[in-house]
Structures are given as structure tokens and as C-alpha cells.
């Protein structure tokens, strides 16, 4: 089997250049894994860069609640270059909102609904933001995957 081989350096440099001052932190964990931090308000631009200009495939997005805020990670695969690029934006507990990328990339529609109901992240301009996995009667403001509830009732 001829593998396509990892020669992602050029693409990664192009992504870094295009993100410019939006790029807050860059970590190359290995030749096959890259983690990039960006400001939350630039998520839509960064996703457009990855999906439309770079031709990356959205594997999935993930959220993690941390004391510093909720980290939202978009995992993009560069299939022809054997590299996974994770773009990460941290939103504050006080205003957990992000631009939806579902209109740009329909693959994100379900996962944004999931992150909305489980982590309480508001996705602006999502075409159909409603419960995906939980029941429609799930109490408002109760987010199962939150670990550091802020502004919501702390149950002893």
C-alpha cells in the first residue's frame, strides 16, 4: 500500500500565515498533530479558511469545560497530507457564544446542537438550534457536561 505520506509543513505554514494576528498560540505536537488557538470571534473566518480554502474535512468539534472558560475545539483532517489540525477557541463562562459554522459546513450542524444542549454554548445564526440528544423538556440552563458552573445554580 502506498501511503500518501505526511508533507503538511507547507499547508500548515500557509494556515499560520492566513490566520495572521488571529493566531494566539501554535503548538506542533508532532508531524501529524497540530493545535492552534484563536480568538472566539474569529471562528467563522478560521473555519472558512480550513473548509473552503484548504479543503480540510471537519472530523468533529468538541467542548471542554475548564476553570478558564469553555474550550471549543474544531478537529480538521488534512487527508491528503496525513495531518490533523485542531483549532481551539476559549469562550468565557459569562458569555458562552460563538458564530455557528453550520451554514458554511453542514457537517457541523448536529455537533453544534449537541454542544448547545450539553455545554450551553450559544451558536449565533445556527439554522436549527434545538435539542438533539436530550428530551425537549430538559430543564433550561442545566448543562450536563459543565464542570465549573458559573451563573447557574450550584447544587450542593
Amino acid at each position, binding site marked *: 500500500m502506498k501511503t500518501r505520506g505526511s508533507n503538511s509543513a507547507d499547508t500548515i505554514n500557509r494556515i499560520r500565515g492566513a490566520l495572521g494576528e488571529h493566531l494566539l498560540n501554535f503548538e506542533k505536537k508532532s508531524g501529524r498533530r497540530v493545535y492552534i488557538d484563536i480568538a472566539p470571534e474569529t471562528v467563522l473566518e478560521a473555519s472558512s479558511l480550513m473548509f473552503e480554502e484548504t479543503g480540510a474535512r471537519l*472530523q468533529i468539534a468538541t467542548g471542554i469545560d475548564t476553570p478558564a472558560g469553555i474550550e471549543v475545539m474544531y478537529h480538521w483532517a488534512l487527508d491528503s497530507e496525513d495531518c490533523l489540525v485542531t483549532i481551539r477557541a476559549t469562550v468565557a463562562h459569562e458569555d458562552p457564544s460563538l458564530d455557528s459554522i453550520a451554514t458554511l459546513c453542514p457537517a457541523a450542524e448536529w455537533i453544534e446542537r449537541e454542544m448547545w444542549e450539553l455545554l450551553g454554548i450559544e451558536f449565533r445564526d445556527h439554522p436549527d438550534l434545538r435539542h438533539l440528544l436530550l428530551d425537549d423538556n430538559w430543564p433550561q440552563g442545566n448543562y450536563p457536561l459543565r464542570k465549573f458552573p458559573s451563573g447557574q445554580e450550584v447544587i450542593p
Partner: protein
Amino acid sequence: MSKRTIVPIGPYHALQEEPEFFKLHVEGETVVHLDIELGYNHRGIEKLSESKDFEETVFLVERICGICSTSHPIACVQAVEDAGDICVPERALFIRSTVGELERIHSHLLWLGLAGHFLGFNTLWMWAWRFREDVLNILELVTGNRNHYGMMKPGGVRRDINDTDIPVIIKLLEGLKDPIAMFRDAVIEDPLVHARTRGIGVLTREKAIAYGALGPTARASGYDIDVRRDHPHAAYGMVDWDVITCGNGDVFDKAVVRILELFESIRIIEQCLNQLKTVTGPVDSDPRFVATGEGIGHYEAPRGEVFHYVRSDGSNRPVRHKVRAPSYMNVPTNRETVLGETIADATIILAAVDPCYCCTERMAVAVDSPGGRRLWGAQDLIRMSCEKTYELMDESGLRGPEPPPCAAAGQTRDSGR
């Protein structure tokens, strides 16, 4: 304009074993819109994983799905290995690919049988499942189990393949080649299968890319992705095989891709087993701890790429464990493929992505952290279910006499615990 009606398929699916709710909006016989409702199979596995150590997590994700019961563990251990920079012995890599490909054969045969059943081609169903039994026998020989093999662990595999078993496995695989060739001919040459599947439920390449479709669903639409080749892992970079693609994206091509992949899987297993004769050594690097860090593992399951993300804080448990199964990306493509088709074709179209609902839904918790207090006990769930039933009865004006006494109906939230 004709009247629009909703035809519900589910939540208890008329044909498949798992619950999922498809609302087909139809005008006459034609489907004009599809609404998919999830959540009937929801077990809280991602949250549960945070309470397990890294070795237990592998057993947990093995139970996400009975069919992909080695794909999730392979992706999971690769994520842990990526997070903690753990090495895997070469012999273990060949064993991982062997078990993974055996699973692909039995999964594809299972789907082929079901597809035949949905089309009314029950002979295909019975033959496919009869030969799937032979694959399960091989899996039992290799792993000790027909399903849920318990083979993977961070740093290697739990069980070696005995040298004396290798000729037996090769002989059993040899016996599968003719039946698979028969299935290929039965599907490709059968006029009935053509009539029911050709040009039906077409997913274009553009839509496949937009929806992030995976596995045979993507490859049937000419979207040439396969994690085994594109991001080599296990032994896939060390053996010779081909990625199967088709171009039409209809149900027929999805079937053809899966059937032809069976031959590739046998090729891969044969090469892995031959390598095992010469590649000796341990099958487990026995890592003692997982360093702080984050890792991504992915594996090409029978239905497409399985994705696991693990973050470790240096303790023996993951801080976060994200699982994304292929059906999560493939099922939404139904919204495109079923449009404009008839109700009669909808069943096979919805089944053509080889959906796996228990994979798609893994999360739910009735526990609120950090206090760990249970939000709802079983009694509360019964009470809520009763309430909802009466709510719906009220809405539809069907409410008759007062409800029969419901065990938990009068209880408060706290007393139910």
C-alpha cells in the same frame, strides 16, 4: 399542490433493531423533507468514561456498539497512546489490523444481509448471515469471543495469536472467498437488485464533502477517503491493499463498495498473518502511566472513521473523552438522499449508510457535577414519562378518565431518589 403528510418511521424502527425516529414529510408518495430525531439510545458514555481509568475506558467504549466492538477500542487506545507518547510493539500492530479487518468482514456481511432483507431478497439475507457465522468462528478462535473481543489495550493487545492457529485461520478465510464472489455476482448481476437500487438515493460528491460523509457512504460517491491509507495506523502502512471507490453515490454503489472491500480485508488479513510468522516479540509495551497531554485517535471502522479525543491531566483517568462515530456524520446525509424518492424506497435509502444508532448517541447524564447529586432517579423518570403522556393526550384531546394510578406520579423529585 398536494397535501403534505408526515409518515413516522420509529422510534421503534419497523425493520431495524435500534430506536431512531425518522419523520418523512411526504406529498403523495414523494418524500419532500426528512426530520431525524435522536436520543432514544442515550447512555452517557463520554461522561462515564471520565470516571474510569485508561484501561477500563477501553472496555467501556467497546460497549458503545456491538458491531464496531473493536473499532472504538482501537481508536481509543490510539488516542491514549497519542496523548501519552506510548510505543506499540510491531507484532501488536499486525494483530490489531487482523482483528479490525475480521470485524469489517462480519459487519459488511451483516449489512449485506439486512439490505437484502429490506429489499425483499431474503435469500441473500440468509446466505450472508450464514457465512458471517464463519467469520465469527474465526474471531472466536483469535479472541475467545464472537463479539466484544477485549483485545485492545493502551500499548498493545491483550492476547497473542498462536502460531498453530494461523494455518487454521488462513484455511477458513480461503473458504470465504467463493461465497463472497457469489455475493458479488448475486448483487451485481441481479436485475431485481438493479431495479431497486440503481439511481436510488443518490448522494453527490459535493454533498458528501459538505456533510463530512465517511467510509463506504463517502467512497460510493467518489469521495476518496480512507483513514487506513490517509493517516496510516496499526499495520495498514505495511501491507498491500487498495481503497475501493465508486462514482454514482446510489444505494447500488454503496453495496458494491462494501462487497469489494471484503476481498481487500481478506488480502490484508492474509498478509498480517504471514507477517506474524516472522515478526516476533512482545505484544504489549505495558505502559505504567499516561503523561499529561491530549491525543486524537482515529480508525476506519466498517462504517467510516471513528474518532476519539482524550485529554489527560497526568492522573489515571481522562479529563475529557470525546467519541464521534461514523453514523453521526453519515445519518444526516439521508436528508439529501431521500428527497424526491418514494416512501417504498426510503427504507433501503435510510439503511444504505449502514446506520448504527447506538454509536451515534453516547451521552446523557442524570448526575450534576460537581456535587454528584442525582438529578433524577428512576421514579422521577417514570413520573416524567407519565406527565408527558398526559400532556400529549391533552393536546390531542384524547384524554379520557383520570389517569390510572402511576407508581411515582404523586411523588416529589427528592422522594424519588
